[in-house]
C-alpha cells in the first residue's frame, strides 16, 4: 500500500532567520552561518515527523515554511 508523500520547504526569499522551524523540528531543518533556515535534503518528511512539519509551518512568523502533500 502506498501513502501520500509529505514535503517541507523553506522559501529563502521569505525566511528572516526567526529560527522557529528549527527549534520545533531540528530533524527537518538546518541553519546556515547567518542563521537562515532550509529544509534538510529534499525535504521529504518521514511518516513520524508529519505533525512536526505542520507545527513548523504554523509557527513561522514570515509564512516561509510550507508543507505539501503529494498523492500516492
Amino acid at each position: 500500500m502506498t501513502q501520500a508523500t509529505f514535503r517541507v520547504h523553506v522559501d529563502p526569499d521569505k525566511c528572516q532567520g526567526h529560527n522557529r522551524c528549527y527549534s520545533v523540528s531540528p530533524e527537518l531543518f538546518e541553519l546556515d552561518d547567518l542563521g537562515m533556515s532550509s529544509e534538510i535534503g529534499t525535504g521529504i518528511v518521514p511518516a513520524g515527523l508529519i505533525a512536526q512539519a505542520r507545527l513548523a509551518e504554523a509557527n513561522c512568523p514570515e509564512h516561509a515554511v510550507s508543507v505539501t502533500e503529494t498523492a500516492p
Partner: protein
Amino acid sequence: MTSRHPPVQDWATDFDHTDPGWVGDPYPIWDNLRQRCPVAHTDRYGGMWLPLTHELVSEVAYDTENFTSRSVVVSERRPGPDDLPAPIGLAPPITSDPPFHAIVRRMLLPAFSPKAIAALEPFTRELCRELLAATAGRPSFDAAAEYARHIPVRVIVRFLGFPQEDADLMRRFIHETMEDVDRSPEEREAVLEEHEAYFDAQIEDHIVHPRDDLTSFLIGAEIDGSKLSEAHIRGTLTLLMIAGIDTTWSAIGASLWHLARHLEDRRRLAGDPELMSTAIEEFLRAYAPVTMARLVARDFDFHGHPFKEGDWLLLPFPAANRDPEAFENPGVVQLDRARNRHAAFGLGRHRCLGSNLARMELRVALEEWLARYPDFELSDPSAVTWSAGQVRGPRTLPVAIGRNGG
C-alpha cells in the same frame, strides 16, 4: 512613570504611548482601537499614526518603500539634515533602509546565530545563579531590580567587550534614550552627545588594545573592502546596547510577573521543563516588549488615511500579537500554545538581530529562577511599575518567596 504631556482625551485621535494609562495597561486600549479604527492618529510628536491589526502591522513592516527606518524611536526630535541620511541612519542596521541594510545585516548575522549565542549560555547561567544566590534567605525582594535587569546588561557588556562595571552606566544611557522621549530637543541633544563620547572612548580603547569581542569585530569589519566609519561603529554599538538590554530585561520581568500571578502556570512550568519551549514563545507573544517606529517616506494614501512624508508611525508588534484575527483567545496565556506565529521580534527584513540571544537569556533566566524559587507571588501588586515608551516591562516587581522556594 509620569508623562510630561497632558492626559489623553481620545485614544483614536490623541493617543500618546507615554501616557500613564497606556504605560499601566495598554491591552484594553489596543483592543478597543482595533475595533474602532483600526488606524489611530495623534497630533502629538508632530503627527503620528498607529495601526492596530496584525494584518496592517505586517503590511507596514514589509513595506520599505513607503516607510523608512531612519528613526525607530519616536521623540520630539526627528532626524535633522545634519544626521546621517538613510540608507545608513544613526544606528545601522536598524535605522538603515535597503539596499544598504542587507549588507550591514549580513555582516552582523553570524555573530548572532544560534551557534554563536550558545557560547554565551554558560556565562548567562552562572550569572543567573549568582544573582539568585544573593537573594538567599530573603522572604521578599524586587525581582525586576535585583534579578531581571542585571541579566541582559551584563551579557551584552561582555558580548561587546566593555568593562563589566559599566553596566549601571549602560542602563542610564538606555533610560535616557528610550524613556525620556518627551524632553526638549536641546535636552536630548546634550544627552546623546554624552553617549557618543562614551562609545568613542570604547572604540579608541579597542583600536589600541584589540580583543576577541564584538567591538573589535566591528573595527576589523569591512564592507566592499572599506573599513566601517567611526560613526557607523558607534551607531551599531549604540543599537546593540539599546536593543539588547531593556528589551530582554522586560521580557524576563513580564514572564516572572505572569508566573507570580498564576499559580497553575507556575506549577506546571516548574514541574515540566518540556513545556519551556512553548511557554517562552507564549510569554513573548502575550507580553512582547517592543513597539517599533517608522517615518512615512512619502505622501500616500494608507487605507483611506492621508499619510504625509515625515509623519511618525508607531509599529506595535505587541498589539499585533493580541489580534483575535491572528490568534485564538489572544488575551489568554496558554503555556502549551502549539500554533504561535507571533511577531515579538518583528517581521520582515528588520527581524530582531538578537532574537536568538534574547530567547537564550529568557529561557536560562526562567529555568534558573524556577529551579530556585518554584513558589512565589507578588508581595504588593500595587507596587508594580512599568516602563514608559516603546519597550514595555516591569521595572518594580516585588515578590514574596513561598515556603517551598529557596
